[in-house]
């Protein structure tokens, strides 16, 4: 059900077009839709955007949508690369220290378990969720949604996965964790010989890739693709 066609708006206070960066070019095959700003609820008309441009709310300035080029394919590529780095980052030690022949190294999961054993269970669970569980859920759902969509198939339970992605997004803190690793590194170099492990570098790259996933992913494109697949099915 699309509302754009049957919305009777009087001309005096018709919803205005959002502020756009860059010029507009014609995209005749999409009907004009209405969009409500999620920050201030201002009703606006969707306008076609040039690739790479952003539409922001004309009242409060929130980003409404973007025209992300090849969003689905690019996000999928970044996601698959991120999955591999995620595995490396979790399997290998992040840091190791040496002091008079004594050596100690930790992986991320090792750090979580060690904290659990030190009776800091609540904190260790928070660390586990924000650095391992949520990023894993994010990457898996992303791949699960985008892989079928690339081949014009409907992923089963797509609403559930889209909802999960949205709810889970603020709790993925790989970049904060990376900063934590760097701060610990500097603190440790005062007293120990510190050797950064493979996982530290892969966490660095993982942070970049997750940022790339976030900036190329566009939920709007996913929903649009889902609608198109549905329309194709109806036609055939």
């Amino acid at each position, binding site marked *: 059900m699309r509302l754009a066609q049957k919305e009777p708006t009087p001309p005096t206070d018709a919803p*205005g077009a959002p502020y756009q960066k860059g010029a507009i070019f014609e995209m005749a095959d999409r009907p004009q839709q209405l969009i409500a700003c999620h920050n*201030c*609820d201002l009703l606006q008309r969707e306008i076609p955007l040039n690739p790479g441009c952003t539409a922001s709310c004309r009242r409060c300035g929130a980003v409404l949508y973007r025209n992300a080029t090849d969003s689905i394919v690019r996000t999928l590529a970044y996601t698959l690369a991120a999955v591999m780095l995620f595995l490396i980052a979790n399997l290998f030690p992040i840091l190791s220290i040496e002091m008079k022949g004594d050596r100690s190294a*930790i992986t991320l999961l090792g750090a979580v378990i*060690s904290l659990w054993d030190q009776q800091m269970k609540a904190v260790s669970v928070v660390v586990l969720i924000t650095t391992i569980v949520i990023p894993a859920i994010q990457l898996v759902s992303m791949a699960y949604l985008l892989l079928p969509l690339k081949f014009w198939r409907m992923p089963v339970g797509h609403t559930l996965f889209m909802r999960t992605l*949205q709810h889970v997004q*603020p709790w993925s803190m790989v970049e904060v964790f990376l900063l*934590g690793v760097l701060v610990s590194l500097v603190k440790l170099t005062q007293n120990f010989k510190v050797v950064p492990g493979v996982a530290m570098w892969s966490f660095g790259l993982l942070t970049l890739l997750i940022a790339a996933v976030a900036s190329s992913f566009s939920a709007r494109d996913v929903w649009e693709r889902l609608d198109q697949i549905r329309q194709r099915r109806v036609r055939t």
Partner: protein
Amino acid sequence: MRPKVQGVSAASRGLSSCHVCNLVSRRKRLSVPAHCPRCGTELHFRKPQSVQRCWALLISGYILYIPANLLIMMETGSLISYRKDTIISGIVHLWKTGNMMIAVIVFVASVVIPLLKLISLTLLLVSVQRRSKWRPKQRTRLYRMIELVGRWSMLDVYVVTLLAALVQLGSMAVVKAGPAAVPFGAVVVLTMFASMQFDPRLIWDPLQDERYQD
């Protein structure tokens, strides 16, 4: 300064936008819970009980902020010295030992951001409850900023985790996480939940003398 009110809100037309797929749809009967025609998510004009829930989480955050700052965050022991550091004293120690960059980063992440978040959310909630028309654009921007920077307060929790797990060299050097780690982590989590519960659209409703419950 009151900005020019341009256009109308979706809610004033009986339209609500789905918070999952962003589809704008009309709600036929306002008393019945409506669902998004595209993805089936329950529709609301505004986040339900946004102000009450946000207050509850925020007040718990304030309460836990006290032990988070007064208790010991990290215990560092070696052959020569034994230190017990709260968040603040840890930062002061970092500054004195010459790691000024790191001291500033930790100060911003674990002192400035949580405090900023608590104060800003209080300001937003009070202004929304008083149906203030004062600078809605700036208040919305403040909200967006809180959402963006909130996560970075987790920094200290990660640092403590890594150090406590790594430095376990028997009698030579030991680092232990202190009791403040739990309330501190809780403050971060609670304020993140609080900012998620807050609905910035409530900032704009008084400008058009509108009021929506659900």
